């Protein structure tokens, strides 16, 4: 049974998703149990993966390059743990909301299982199929409240995401035309020969894949869908989108750039410079746009663009420290941003407004939630005792070592800007409320009791995670270590 674990991690949430549609009573139990089982299965692999072992599973017994195989290595393990862990917390956070019917849990489970599919598969076309499945589920989750704004946000994401994935598919087609295989590891073996004969084709496929994933990651000129989609979605979905879904795009980029376009090609076509430039642009753009936002969730959405810029800079530097910093920042950002979105969900529920101005006095009503919010936003800015500092510090160190001192200045400027917008929110939280009795109206039209355990528990867990990873960064770094050594083994053959 133990050799079947990779497929079970993917298929159990998918099976539960369709079983959820058949039951009304046990939908939450079924969803939570399937995700917990998947997490347990993933953890049983941890000892093998963390000792730089690679677990391969051939679907239907067909080996590559013909068949589809699943590969769990350090990189996949790292990302799948983030996805599953946050997915469980999102499900717990959604429990008190009675409006979420079984369709909601169905979509949540399908999106989670296809995320794991994207991460584990070694077949690049299969990656596209799983990504499309993930995107379809996410479009529907954004539009779940069925109001005008959510439908519009979802539709614009649908168009942008469709275009992005078509670019990705076209790039995959070029790779297939050149190498005659879809298995990533076989592509990596055959691509150097193709590069010598037809350089233009290789560059073209890289550009197509990078553009497609750029839309999904929302780097600066391709970010148009993100602020609407991430801010209009229901709060748990926003947390999932900002915390995990964009990270899947980063995973695909890393996987394709480092594994398929291996070693010398990465530096030959200067793709590290491209990543760095895109990172800097979206870093500054996200920070300055967030500064101008009045809507709390929109502010958080622009902050996502800002933080993803930091990750891209770390990836672009490409040294060991830079990659460690980038992957660690992926983990940190997932934890911090979902804390912030969970807190924002409660704030919007309690105060009945999405405006930052309307939050005045919330800090005195609910000090615990506010404390979690402050911890996570300090992490976003990058202030020492919280985890965001550790990863930003690593990326800055790597930039100095690689001779890009200007990047450090840019990251510090962006951090200062993010300090400006987060402190503005924190200041409003503790200011005196204006003397008026506004009726609390939920964003989805329902008030939830403020002491609900299921709402606050994920927030406490995540805030504790922020502090823990900030005080003992070695925990997160040791998790990212196998992934980094794997990536470096591709760069230096």
């Amino acid at each position, binding site marked *: *049974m133990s*050799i*079947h674990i990779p*497929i079970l991690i993917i*298929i159990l949430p*998918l*099976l539960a998703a*369709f*079983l959820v*549609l*058949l039951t009304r009573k046990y939908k939450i139990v079924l969803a939570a149990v399937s995700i917990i089982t998947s997490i347990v299965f993933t953890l049983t692999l941890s000892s093998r993966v963390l000792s730089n072992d690679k677990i391969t*599973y*051939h*679907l*239907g*017994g067909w080996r590559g390059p013909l068949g589809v195989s699943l590969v769990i290595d350090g990189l996949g393990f790292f990302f799948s743990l983030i996805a599953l862990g946050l997915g469980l917390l999102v499900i717990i956070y959604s429990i008190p909301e009675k409006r979420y019917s079984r369709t909601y849990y169905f979509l949540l489970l399908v999106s989670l299982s296809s995320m794991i599919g994207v991460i584990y598969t070694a077949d690049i076309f299969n990656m596209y199929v799983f990504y499309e499945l993930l995107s379809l589920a996410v479009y529907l989750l954004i539009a779940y409240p*069925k109001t005008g704004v959510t*439908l519009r946000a979802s539709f614009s994401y649908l168009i942008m995401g469709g275009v992005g994935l078509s670019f990705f598919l076209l790039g995959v087609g070029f790779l297939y035309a050149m190498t005659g295989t879809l298995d990533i590891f076989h592509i990596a073996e055959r691509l150097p020969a193709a590069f010598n004969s037809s350089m233009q084709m290789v560059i073209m496929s890289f550009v197509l894949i990078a553009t497609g994933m750029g839309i999904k990651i929302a780097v600066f000129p391709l970010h148009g869908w993100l602020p609407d989609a991430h801010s209009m979605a229901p709060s748990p979905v926003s947390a999932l989108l900002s915390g995990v879904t964009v990270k899947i795009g980063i995973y695909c980029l890393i996987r394709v750039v480092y594994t398929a376009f291996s070693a010398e090609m990465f530096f030959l076509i200067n793709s590290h410079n491209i990543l760095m430039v895109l990172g800097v642009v979206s870093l500054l753009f996200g920070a300055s746009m967030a500064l101008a936002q009045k809507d709390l969730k929109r502010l958080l959405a622009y902050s996502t663009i800002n933080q993803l810029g930091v990750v891209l800079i770390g990836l672009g530097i490409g040294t060991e420290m830079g990659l460690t910093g980038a992957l660690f920042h992926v983990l940190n950002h997932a934890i911090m941003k979902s804390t912030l979105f969970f807190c924002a969900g409660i704030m919007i529920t309690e105060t009945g407004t999405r405006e930052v101005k309307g939050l005045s006095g919330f800090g005195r009503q609910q000090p615990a939630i506010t404390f979690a919010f402050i911890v996570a936003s300090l992490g976003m800015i990058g202030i020492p005792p919280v985890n965001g500092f550790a990863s930003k510090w690593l990326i800055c160190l790597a930039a100095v070592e690689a001779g890009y001192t200007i990047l450090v200045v840019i990251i510090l400027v962006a951090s200062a800007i993010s300090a400006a917008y987060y402190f503005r929110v924190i200041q409003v939280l503790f200011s005196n409320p204006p003397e008026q009795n506004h009726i609390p109206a939920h964003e989805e039209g329902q008030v939830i009791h403020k002491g609900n355990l299921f709402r606050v528990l994920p927030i406490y867990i995540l805030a504790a995670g922020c502090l823990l990873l900030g005080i003992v960064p070695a925990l997160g770094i040791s998790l990212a270590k196998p992934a980094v050594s794997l990536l470096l083994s591709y760069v230096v053959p």
Partner: protein
Amino acid sequence: MGSSKIIRTIAQKLFPFIMLFGFYLISNGHLSPGGGFQGGVVLGTAIILLALSHGIEQTEKIFKSRWLNMLEKLGILTLIFLGFLGIFFGYSFLGNFLPLGRPGQITSGGLMLPFNIAIGIKVAAGVSAIFYALIKYRGEI
């Protein structure tokens, strides 16, 4: 929806043949052009043809949307279950555990025939359920 008597009669007479062709595509999917998805779509269009000619209420009396929704979920669950059977019989997930037979025969595809049938059921039910939804919720939202 009031269609003329000619259209209603022709649709009624065509219906079994379209169904038959759909089943043919599904069951010969592993031997000739066709397969679960294509055959399922043909089955779905047969139901859509009835709905267009006889009106949605008439059609819903025979092909109830509750049953169609149920069949759709059943199709995908069967598919996953067949995949699991591969594990239980000692192969890998989606591994073939059926005898392979002589090439060209209907039983020669191993697991492909049950797969195609499950996919065909799902697609047929899905296509017609989507059509029902489009007709019923027209103009809402």
